[in-house]
């Protein structure tokens, strides 16, 4: 069962995880496991991680987010990170971290749209 520190909701075929708290490393670690288990349990083919509430993303959290996306990808699920604040983006790039290989979107709406478009490509209407 998810440890529940970070809520993970199912929206259609997409999982939405909204990070609203200042993250302890142990919360970060359990979140990664929770989200992968939820992907398997729900059979979701899209994952959105909303970080719009996060004022600080240090290198540890950034790596965790990127790795979660890579792990989800191995399972067959695409990840979009949405809502990164301007100061967070500036700080990560100044530190030399570019979140390579991770898809991002400005907002939750855009993230959902990205998943919807991908699903349409996978299953084009007859």
């Amino acid at each position: 069962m998810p440890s529940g520190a970070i809520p993970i909701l199912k929206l259609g075929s997409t999982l939405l995880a909204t990070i609203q708290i200042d993250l302890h490393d142990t919360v970060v670690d359990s979140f990664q496991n929770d989200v992968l288990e939820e992907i398997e349990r729900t059979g979701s083919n899209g994952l959105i991680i909303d970080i719009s509430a996060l004022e600080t993303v240090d290198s540890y959290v950034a790596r965790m987010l990127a790795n979660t996306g890579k792990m989800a990808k191995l399972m067959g699920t695409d990840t979009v990170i949405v809502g990164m604040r301007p100061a967070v983006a500036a700080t990560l790039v100044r530190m030399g971290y570019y979140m390579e290989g991770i898809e991002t979107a400005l907002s939750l709406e855009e993230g959902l749209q990205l998943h919807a478009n991908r699903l349409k490509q996978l299953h084009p209407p007859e």
Partner: protein
Amino acid sequence: MEEIRIEREADIVAVRQRVRELTKEYRFDQFEVAALTTAASELSRNVWVHAQRGIARIVVLHNGKKVGLELEFVDHGPGIADLNRALAGGFSTSKSLGLGLSGTKRLVDEFDIDTEVGRGTKIVVRKWKKEF
């Protein structure tokens, strides 16, 4: 000056939160707040991961009209054997990207490090608020 002991993982969050409160109280802009809280997070984690205990000191600096924040981290852990490599980046340990020190250095205006193998490490960083 304020001191926060680092002896549990949760203390990383405590240091980060106190730095965030002070930077907001002194009206640093959002980019400066993020830079300082991230630097505080990286350096506290270094203490926790490598030395398990240490002290964070936070000082508000005043120099004429200029306001800045100084963060000092002291531990008696293993020290850093290859400082040049650690500062060059890409030197990854178990819990970092290898960007802890090199990345932090790019976020602040001043960065001083004093380390000795077997004795410990002291890092002092300062960042000044931009004046307009």
